[in-house]
């Protein structure tokens, strides 16, 4: 009996020591100052071997771990390996949409380090994903919006949106956004713009898509017409000292063969205050 009691006491004493030691260890402030957890990350080749054919599962585990790890923004040093971690995930599963998206998001939001390097890393990750997922327009679209809204790089946004628009299955909205952005940055000639919008109109099947694309096509034609007709108005005002009230006046004076019409067949107007062409876009939306 006494032996049993002694054993029990010894076990309890050992247990108490373990609990107290554990609490003491937990009380010591831990600092992952150099993101040392990341130093033990194996290479993609080793992880592929270890996964025994379940590379997608290995990528999932690593992705979920990385989300938890990078959710704490307290340590800047751990971000040194950010690109390595997401490269590892996407090497294991090259078609992991969320890994590209969330990885790029974390990279673009990190505070420490050189923003130019972060941006370059985001571009590399998205380019890798876009190359690895040739059948997906979605990732290119997400990348384009990130470039547009987060990175504030319109050239890059247009490049990625172009990729999205050119991929099969891309909806009309993506094609319209690409055309619109390209128009905004004056990234092509007006003839290219017209040719593009005519293509979008031809491809569209829904009434709303046709109308929206026609509206953009109208604007491109109006810009083209403005380029040739505004100088004419300017030269007349310079010569006569006043702006013509309508295009009909120019026809009557023999300066124009007929009243210029817009893309929808309606006559253009003249803005007397600025002496420029006025386009009145009227598209039936019903």
């Amino acid at each position, binding site marked *: 009996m006494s032996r049993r009691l002694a054993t029990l006491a010894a076990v309890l004493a050992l247990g108490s020591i373990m609990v107290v030691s554990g609490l003491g260890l937990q009380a010591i402030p831990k600092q992952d100052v150099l993101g040392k957890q990341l130093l033990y990350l194996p290479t993609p080749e080793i992880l592929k071997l270890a996964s025994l054919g*379940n590379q997608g599962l290995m990528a*999932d585990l690593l*992705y979920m771990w990385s989300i938890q790890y990078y959710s704490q923004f307290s340590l800047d040093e751990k971000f040194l390996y950010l690109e390595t971690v997401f490269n590892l995930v996407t090497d294991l599963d090259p078609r992991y949409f969320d890994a590209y998206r969330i990885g790029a998001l974390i990279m673009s939001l990190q505070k420490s380090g050189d923003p130019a390097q972060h941006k370059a890393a985001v571009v590399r990750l998205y380019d890798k994903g876009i190359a690895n997922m040739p059948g997906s327009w979605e990732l290119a679209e997400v990348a384009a919006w990130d470039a547009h809204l987060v990175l504030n790089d319109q050239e890059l946004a247009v490049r990625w949106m172009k990729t999205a628009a050119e991929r099969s299955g891309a909806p009309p909205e993506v094609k319209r956004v690409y055309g619109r952005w390209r128009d905004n940055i004056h990234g092509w000639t007006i003839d290219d713009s017209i040719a593009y919008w005519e293509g979008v109109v031809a491809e569209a099947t829904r009434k709303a898509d046709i109308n929206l694309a026609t509206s953009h096509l109208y604007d491109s034609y109006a810009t083209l017409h403005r380029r040739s007709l505004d100088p004419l108005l300017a030269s007349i005002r310079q010569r006569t000292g006043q702006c013509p009230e309508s295009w009909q006046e120019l026809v009557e004076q023999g300066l124009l063969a007929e009243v210029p019409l817009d893309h929808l067949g309606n006559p253009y107007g003249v803005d007397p205050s600025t002496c420029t062409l006025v386009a009145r876009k009227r598209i039936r939306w019903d």
Partner: protein
Amino acid sequence: MRAVAAIARNTFREALRDRVLYLFLGFAVLLLVCSKLFGLLTVGDEGKVIKDFGLAGIQLFTMLIAVMMSVLLISREVDSRTVYNILAKPVRRWQFLIGKYLGLLATVAVNLALMTAVLLLVTVVYLREFDAGLLFAAAMTLLEMALLTAFATLFAVLTRPMLGTVFTLAVFVIGHVAEDIWLLTQHVERHRATAGRRALCGAAQPRALQLQGRGGARPGGLLG
């Protein structure tokens, strides 16, 4: 052929009596818990995680069934000497083996079908989608398990249960890493060639320096 079918049927029944099919219930519970847990942990497409876990679980469970049952069922027949009763009848040895193999394969296939049904049900309930690709994946897993069961049956005949299990698991691992090992050999070959070139250049270096010291021509072909 009737002998093969009879042995296969009895092997399947024996596996059922061993409550092997309960494994699929374990898989179902595991998958449901994992789906909930990883749905909370991940950001983005939960469906991918659920499918990856489900397929990996199916592979693991069916592999365990294939390996353990193949080795145990045959060795049990030998240890309990019931195999003598069978072979005393007009049953050839190859018929016994093929019957055992087919019975085990049927057990694996039924388990696989049940687990795939659970995975499909989970995806339909959680994700509101029916992914026919999962059926294809399950079919390919069955093909893999058919091969593994054949190896397990072979090892069960040749060795003791423990060794048979180890050998079959080794075949499973080797089968999965074969391509990577082949790539590794290519990698090693490249490195060996580079190391050889370096060694050649390293050996040539003192000679080159000597020649330079004497005003001789530098053997750029080796050093360059």
